[in-house]
């Protein structure tokens, strides 16, 4: 079975190489690596793209549940914030400031949280799953706020600039050099790793099983798939990678508070990015995270009421284009192709 799938993947890859979309993707990726050195790029732009990539990691992970398993989670802030807090608290209490130790710690903490609350939540589906995730994640938020002697309460925890592989780049290169020369690449590499791994997982028998569950849980159960267990695995995988996104967010921002990483409305934002980009497409959430951060940063410059704008966009997307930006893009491409072939394939 795995033999077949391997050929399946390689055929898929070969087809993708002939596809203009994947060529554009490759160009974008090369552009992303060259980004800090492009003319006119400053610290602000690199920081912004870093934010986009950090959220794109989390949104890709979010889509493992929403797009591939058919589960809406309102509790992903627990993974995102759990990882960020693990890093902040480890720095504060153990004095560790080595990124190569802290990131795995954050990811594993998020994974551990996902093991527990995922195990409990997958006993239910649909609204009940969403609400159970919400309750359990909000429990973590409330406890973090209340235990201010340990967690700093609503003030949050500072995350000082970590060393990377024992080298203190901040001391030798200054903040701009650190951000644009190292940190940005750390985030970019984390993003590429996430993209490659999740793509492979979602195109493996594991991913196909999840899709089967999404499309028809009853039939999946009938053909012998342990549905609940696979939903749990999907929750854990989603949690681990959301944690990676949270870790990148934490080191990029240098400070985390319960309100910015653990509150339930952050889970809503991750859901928003995924839906905005398009849940049915693997790369959709990346577009969604990019659009979200760009709309937000533009709106914030125009008005302090940017939540209004975000809410409006989310509402309009769901009412008029539930397939998100990717769906919109696909429709436009299809129209163009039809127009070119004057009545081609579909």
């Amino acid at each position, binding site marked *: 079975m795995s033999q077949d799938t391997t050929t399946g993947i390689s055929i898929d890859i070969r087809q993708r190489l002939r596809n203009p979309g994947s060529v554009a993707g490759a160009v974008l990726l090369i552009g992303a690596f060259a980004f800090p050195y492009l003319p006119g790029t400053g610290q602000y732009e690199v920081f912004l793209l870093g934010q986009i990539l950090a959220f794109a990691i989390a949104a890709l992970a979010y889509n493992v549940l929403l797009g591939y398993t058919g589960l*809406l989670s309102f509790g992903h802030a627990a993974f995102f914030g759990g990882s960020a807090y693990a890093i902040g608290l480890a720095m504060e209490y153990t004095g560790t400031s080595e990124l190569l130790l802290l990131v795995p710690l954050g990811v594993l903490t998020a994974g551990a949280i996902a093991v527990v609350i995922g195990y409990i939540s997958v*006993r*239910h589906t649909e609204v009940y799953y969403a*609400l*159970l995730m919400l309750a359990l994640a909000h*429990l973590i938020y409330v406890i973090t706020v*209340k235990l201010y002697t340990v967690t700093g309460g609503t003030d949050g925890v500072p995350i000082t600039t970590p060393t990377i592989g024992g080298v203190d780049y901040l001391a030798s290169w200054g903040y701009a050099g650190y951000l644009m020369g190292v940190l940005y690449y750390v985030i970019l590499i984390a993003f590429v790793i996430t993209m490659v791994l999740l793509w492979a997982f979602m195109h493996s028998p594991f991913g196909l099983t999840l899709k089967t569950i999404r499309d028809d849980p009853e039939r999946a159960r009938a053909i012998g798939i342990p549905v609940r267990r696979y939903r749990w695995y999907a929750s854990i995988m989603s949690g681990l990678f959301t944690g990676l996104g949270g870790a990148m967010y934490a080191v990029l921002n240098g400070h985390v508070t319960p309100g910015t990483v653990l509150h339930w409305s952050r889970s809503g934002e991750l859901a928003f990015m995924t839906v905005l980009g398009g849940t049915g497409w693997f790369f959709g959430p990346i577009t969604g995270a990019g659009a979200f951060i760009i709309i937000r940063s533009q709106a914030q410059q125009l008005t302090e009421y940017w939540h*209004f704008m975000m809410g409006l*966009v989310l509402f309009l997307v769901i009412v008029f284009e539930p397939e998100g930006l990717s769906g919109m893009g696909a429709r436009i491409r299809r129209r163009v192709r039809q127009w070119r072939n004057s009545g081609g394939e579909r």
Partner: protein
Amino acid sequence: MVQQFISEQLVIILNGLSGAATLFLLGTGMSLIYGMLNFLNLAHAAFLPLGAYLGASLIHATVGAVGGTLGFVGLFVVFFVLLLVVVPVTVSAIGLAMEQTAFKPLYGLEDDYQLLATFGVILMMEDAMKFIWGGQPVSATAPANLLGSFSLPGRTYPWWSVLTILVTVLVAATLYYFFEETRLGKITLAMAEDDEAVSFTGIDTRSIHLKVFVIGIALAALGGALYLPLASMTTGLALEFVILAFAVLVIGGLGSLKGAITASLIIGMVQAYGSYYVPVLELAIVFLLMAAVMLVKPTGLFGEIEA
């Protein structure tokens, strides 16, 4: 000593009941709207802060305009009419307008998408309130000050809380009567079971939908109006009320009035005792309770809808 203990317990119970009152007014509408209309409206909870803000503006305007010239009874009647009638009516008019524009397109969608779209609506409402009333906390203690407080051994307790409890009991009793005894109430319950079958009998189900929707929003606004005189309102609270409304919904069971009453009482009491004896865990207990109920009985204590 014993007297001290008794008055302590009395205060905790009263706190629990007045907390339960707010939760009931907040959660019932959301629960009924989900039960009757099959519409999961996250934004419902934002009508409570809307009611509170509107109440604050009206109270400040009244105090500014008439002040003490009306005398105790006159002023109290004005406050009572403002908070119990004007606020709910105005807010439900806003809610009705929103139903026609924002919520109607969502009725056919799956629950998941309703949750997300109404999350968008709540973000908009939160900012609209911030735009109108500013980011600073708003309070209006005039009605509560007017009523004053009564004394217990070793402490005093505001009459306003007692009033809140009484008004809510009245509302709950009226709703109960409505659903159990009146024709319209029975039709509504039947619609929750099978919308289409009811519409075949020639009953205008859409107009009943709207009535349920408006009543639900009026209740949330009333909750806000009664909550305000003893607390202050900030925009961030909208997002906190959402999650408390969910707690009522989930613990009581979606769409059940009995469930909403029971759940509000349980949460109110747990919170009151929790904040007195283990303040650190006050809110955490609510969500633990919510998770525990969902694990044991996912449809909630009185839920009839299958998971």
